């Protein structure tokens, strides 16, 4: 494959990144790390992860589902009440 010049440096001269994008990136990075850390000890449900990470339940759901989509976590099993799934880190 022919190697070409990197174009990112060109657009960087024309555009500025909005502070909101940078803030969102920090939030994602922080929450991803917290969820991954919480799951290191073993599979957990979303309410258990929320309690451990201090995330709100909707935020814990949103970020857990994002990590599920991006392949960082997988479903382990369903709890005894058939209400919540346990999620665990994907073995890599």
């Amino acid at each position, binding site marked *: 494959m022919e190697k070409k010049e990197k174009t*990112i440096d060109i657009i960087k001269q024309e555009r500025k990144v909005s502070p909101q994008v940078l803030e969102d990136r920090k939030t994602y990075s922080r929450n991803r790390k917290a969820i991954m850390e919480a799951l290191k000890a073993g599979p957990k*449900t979303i309410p258990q992860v929320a309690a451990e990470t201090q995330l709100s339940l909707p935020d814990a759901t949103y970020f857990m589902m994002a990590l599920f989509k991006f392949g960082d976590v997988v479903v382990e099993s369903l709890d005894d009440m058939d209400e919540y799934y346990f999620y665990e880190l994907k073995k890599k």
Partner: protein
Amino acid sequence: MTDNQNAAATCLDETQFDVMVIGAGIAGAESALKLGDMGYKVLLVEKEPSIGGKMILLSKVFPTLDCAACITTPKVSETARHPNITIHTLTEVETIQRNSDRHFSVQLNKKPRYVVEKDCTGCQECENVCPVITKDQFQFNLTARKAVYIPFNIANPRIALIDIENCMLCGACEKACPSNCIDFTQKEQQLQITAKSVIVATGFKLFDPISIERYGYGRYKNVITSMQMERELAPTRPFNNVLRPSDGKIPDKIAYVFCTGSRDHTVGNPICSQVCCMYSTKQAQLLMGALPMADISLYYINIRAFGKGYNEFYLQAKDMGANYVKGKIGKITEKENGNLILRFEDILTGKVTEKEHDMVVLSVGLLANPAITKVFKGEKLELDPINYVQQPNMLQSPAQTSLEGVFVAGTATGPMDIPDTIMSAGAAATETSSYLKRLS
């Protein structure tokens, strides 16, 4: 023929068309395919990064419960590969002006993908390294996507694009791309084409229930729209199962609120949306399959099951255990645990009653999408009183519009189901072909 093969649009062949179809949903694609098969040169213009419209995002279709993607993807694929069809995605029509020779001069605005289309293999290596997430509009905000992304698994073309507004310009995607196809120097392109005729297949907009405050949509996480539930039920769903967005719980008492934003003068949409009763009934059947222990209650004003096999489909849902309640919802309130209290008037008894559910689905209506009228310069594309494209000769020539040489297909004319959309698209192709023969 893909975007890649004709993006430059420089030679005569790529700027002169028999027909321009605006909108590559199922109506536009069907019209384009029919005309392409007849030998006409068709330009299909789509503002989204993928063709397939809303149908490609559905779970299954009623009343047959066939997989929507299984029906749509072969058609979309056939459209993309057709030698007589040129497709421009991420492209909007800016102006349409009739020339003295009765042909139309069209100006198109093609937005940059920041990805060289012909080189992208859809490997998603760029997505893997992108550090930024934002809400995934193709999952109706239920989950996230990266700033560089492929819209959805069955997108066509299945190539990446960069959401530059949410990109932090770190360059990780460009570094990781094995085919060197990331190109941040791409700019908007103004394309000029001519077409002998136009088909408007711009579809509909979904009603946004945020304007009905008493339903709590946008405030209560477990009040979702029917399109969000459609995604939860689809094979390419945002979650691992049907779950509550508030806490990931499997819901076991789900309510549907029919006629949200349709048959309602207070929200400016007095007409029936035609499909809500049946898509809700379909979703109820699918939910009873996915969650066998769940109670599904459907709050309706009237059931409109008018199509072939529709009434039987409705009766089948009742036989399966769906609980149809003839009731009008006054208000939804949220409990601390995320459950929802529905306050409604039971129309049969006249009593005001309350019932608790752990998830509420608003069966949102269809709205007209009249923005296309603004692009016609020097003449006016007439709309009906509800803002759909007017059909001046609906019984004898349903695709005819107020403008000679401009035809209409699908839900741009009004709410309709998928079989009617396909028939409407066929009619538009036939009438366009007849017009082109008269013109030559």
